[in-house]
């Protein structure tokens, strides 16, 4: 059906041109030009006082293979991967519940996922830090209950970063999953049961394959931002779980090496494109990535 609608869109060439014109301008100004700028900058050099000079060099890209950086890439992939897996594991049953419940206040459950979106994620991440810190509520509670004599350090490790990431990105997993599960035809589940399949078999053979598109788009929408959410690893990971995002941020801020930051950004964009390509290859629907 998606293919069909694209086809009809294309066949109405005139009106679509009129619509696409302004969009193209918009994209040129706010996407293409900055991208080209970053691309060019990634091949620039800096002088002793950290000014950008337009002298071609590939050294920024050579520096990307620095073993320290390699380790950070590894951490990034690991954290993003764990975050995605956790989001799927929690998000799937959660989305299933809100999508299939017969409860009439279903919209309320959905809103509960959306509302946190409306407050600043930075503030919410600081909230976690206050909650989990050595002087935080959780430790306070544990000590009051005499479960521990010393405060436990929950923060400043990969676990805390993953927790923060899952917390921030969870809605991105739930939304596509919810849509996919909601679309599921009840009759198909009944047909499966009618033909002798028990609940878990129906899940494996019918529900999961038919909602896989939601899992894919959810994963893309969690994995990719996860690589870039530097403030989460900054605040909760405390430098112990630096990710590509932190690396880039540092080049533009304290490091003051914009060309290197640009090269890192280009790599991040390439990784993103690669993942989206893989997603498409796996039969993913580009429309369900649109937010």
């Amino acid at each position: 059906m998606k293919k069909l609608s694209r086809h009809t869109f294309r066949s109405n060439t005139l009106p679509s041109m009129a619509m696409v014109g302004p969009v193209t301008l918009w994209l040129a100004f706010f996407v293409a030009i900055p991208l080209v700028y970053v691309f060019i900058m990634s091949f620039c050099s800096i002088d002793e006082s950290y000014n950008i000079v337009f002298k071609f060099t590939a050294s920024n890209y050579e520096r990307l293979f620095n073993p320290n950086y390699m380790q950070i890439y590894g951490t990034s992939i690991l954290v993003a991967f764990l975050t995605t897996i956790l989001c799927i594991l929690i998000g799937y049953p959660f989305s299933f519940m809100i999508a299939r419940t017969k409860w009439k206040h279903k919209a309320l459950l959905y809103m509960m996922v959306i509302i946190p979106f409306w407050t600043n994620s930075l503030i919410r991440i600081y909230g976690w830090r206050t909650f989990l810190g050595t002087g935080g509520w959780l430790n306070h509670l544990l000590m009051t209950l005499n479960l521990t004599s010393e405060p436990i350090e929950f923060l400043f490790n990969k676990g805390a970063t993953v927790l923060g990431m899952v917390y921030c990105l969870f809605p991105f997993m739930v939304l596509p999953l919810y849509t996919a599960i909601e679309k599921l035809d009840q009759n198909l589940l009944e047909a499966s049961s009618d033909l002798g399949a028990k609940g878990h078999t129906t899940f494996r053979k019918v529900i999961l394959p038919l909602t896989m598109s939601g899992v894919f788009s959810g994963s893309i929408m969690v994995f990719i931002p996860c690589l870039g959410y530097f403030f989460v690893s900054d605040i909760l990971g405390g430098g112990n779980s630096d990710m590509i995002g932190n690396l880039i941020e540092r080049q533009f801020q304290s490091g003051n090496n914009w060309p290197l930051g640009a090269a890192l950004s280009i790599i991040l964009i390439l990784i993103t494109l690669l993942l989206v390509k893989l997603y498409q290859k796996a039969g993913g629907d580009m429309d369900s990535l649109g937010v």
Partner: protein
Amino acid sequence: MISVSTEAEKKVIVEIKGVNKIYGSNHVVKDLDLTVYEGEFLTLLGSSGCGKTTTLRMVAGFEEPTSGSIRVEGEDIQNKEPFERDVNTVFQSYALFPHMTVYDNVAYGLKMKKVKKAEIKERVIHMLDLVQLGGFEKRYPSQLSGGQKQRVAIARALINRPKVLLLDEPLGALDLKLRKQMQLELKRLQRKLNITFIYVTHDQEEALTMSDRICIMNDGVLQQVGTPYEIYETPKTKFVATFIGETNLFEGSVIKKSGRKLHIAVEPGDFAVEDENENFNQGDMIAVSVRPERMLYSDTPVDGFNLIGTVKEQVYVGSVLKTIVILSNGNEIKIERLAGQELPTGGQVYLYWGNGDAKLIHTFDNVFAQAVENIVMQ
């Protein structure tokens, strides 16, 4: 009913007893008693919303009766999940698995039963041949036409050799020509495989041509069960008389009974009819149903009939001459005959019919219900 002995010989396969289904304040199926015999083609017929689908879903196990019991081969299936019931369903929307090929769709039930691969293959190929879809194994449902999807749905259910196959308006989405063709195919399959069919439709013609027996429902209440001939020729309720085919209904009461002869007064006149089964007494409320093709007219009075009307219009529809006559109370009477003398519009005619062409229906229940309703209203 007529032949009690032959009915006793037939093996009961599904027995629905005193089944009610209530959704909130909506009483959808009311005290349903229905017996289905092995190998028969039974149709549930009724207008939209009368509870046909709900009845099927209770047999399939997707819905639980509020009260009453359903037995399959004598065994109460109340506590059996749909996947444990030896019953399969053909859904109105087909409900084919979109991510599976035709082959995998049809093989689904056998895989669930852990049938050996080689046997599955053999049976699927055979089944697809049977529904004339040989060579379509590798297609996906989205690559099939409506009629082909429908046949896959039937194959997917039939391959499990269920004791009972439930079909919920399986031909509803097809165009007229394809529907006629599929009706014949379904009937052929049913005979060949000798599987009991419980078939839902609201198309009376479909019901009349395909069924061994028809069960007519109205507003959750079973009206009558019988062969198509019985249903058409001896409707037991006013609803059945008017629902199946066209008919003219005269409602009134028995004013005199002499032997088998009943004298009946209706609003626009009176007449005498033969009560072969002696079911009626003086004072009974009665509805008399006369099919348009049995209704006769004359330009001179007819002995035993006092029904005078004026001709409203007369048209040839194909080879049939259709006449509409208006009675003194404004009721329209439809008459169909194969040719004959044409009448002038506005002319006066005397209506009558042959012995045995009028079907007599008790309307006591309706009057009683009306009375109860009146009391409740007050």
